């Protein structure tokens, strides 16, 4: 299963969500499908994409928030799972692309390649619903259901350790950040 095919399969569902991604292949591949002002790419600070999603979800309880995380990033901040489980925001979907490697720095294997099970860790941390998917069809069904449904969910997507040729895009980090905030402000203005 390729991460880019997974992203493509649910791309249209992201239109009304706030989306936070990690750095590297996830950010680049989502952008290559078409950037949108409701997408924020956290191009460093590994481990904090889910914390950012939690902040958004708690502050905007009527807004669906989707985090695209990765095994390397999540392993740097496993404590986040206990924090997510503690507050269980109903409007947060935590997708973890697990390619069992730190792809963007040369493909070094992570601990999920030697048996660490992120779904199991999430369940044990108290995340109410966690699943692992291995095909694009499974991914699409699980993620679509999580976005349209209610309740904190984690979806671990086992993907191939392949990504784009290059990771730098022409979208400036600050441009992305200010555009994202303005998008949220425009939502607030519309709802008033």
């Amino acid at each position: 299963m390729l991460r880019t095919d997974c992203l493509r399969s649910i791309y249209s569902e992201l239109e009304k969500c706030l989306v936070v991604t990690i750095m590297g292949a996830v950010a680049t591949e989502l952008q290559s499908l078409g950037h949108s002002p409701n997408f924020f790419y956290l191009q460093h600070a590994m481990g904090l994409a889910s914390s950012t999603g939690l902040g958004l979800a708690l502050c905007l309880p009527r807004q669906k928030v989707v985090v695209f995380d990765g095994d390397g990033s999540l392993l740097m901040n496993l404590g986040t799972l206990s924090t997510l489980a503690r507050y269980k925001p109903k409007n947060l979907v935590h997708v973890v692309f697990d390619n069992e490697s730190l792809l963007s720095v040369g493909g070094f294997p992570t601990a999920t390649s030697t048996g660490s099970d992120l779904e199991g860790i999430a369940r044990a941390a108290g995340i109410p619903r966690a699943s692992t998917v291995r095909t694009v069809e499974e991914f699409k069904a699980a993620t679509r259901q999580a976005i349209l449904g209610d309740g904190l969910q984690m979806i671990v997507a086992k993907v191939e350790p392949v990504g784009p040729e290059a990771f730098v895009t022409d979208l400036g980090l600050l441009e992305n950040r200010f555009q994202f905030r303005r998008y949220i402000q425009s939502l607030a203005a519309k709802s008033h």
Partner: protein
Amino acid sequence: MPVSLENSKIIYTALKACGIRLLSALPETWLVHLIQIAEGDPEMTLVRLAKEEEGVGLSAGAHFAGVKSAMLMQNHGYLASINGIVSFAHLYKVPLLMLITYRGSFGERDPWQTQGGNVTEALLRAMNIPYSFLDAPASVERRIRQAHTLAESSLQPVALLLTRDLMWVE
């Protein structure tokens, strides 16, 4: 417990007056009253963290959402947050109001706190984080307001060091 409840209330009132509605916190002795007050306040979203660095992401998310936030942590929690501050708050110009208890400074009796005390200000300076002290009840409200104003106008982290003189009743 000889942590000043009175001065904790003054700090909390000042945070509320700035419009702070989300607090991330990791407990430490000097923060117990502040966390308990926040927990009992229906207007405040209190997020108890596993590690302080998560608070950088929480505050960034809150800022994007248009909600004002602050972080309560010990200085060792600041040390544990450094990458998040540099590669999120600084990189993406995210305002952070960091209230940091200044353990390991003059009067510290706990040997395990002393090394953190030695490096706290040097690291704040090295990271170009503007900082000041909360050391007397009369100036708490003004300093918090000024720190918050600077964080919001400069879109960067600003630190307030909570001192023993303010937090501890001998």
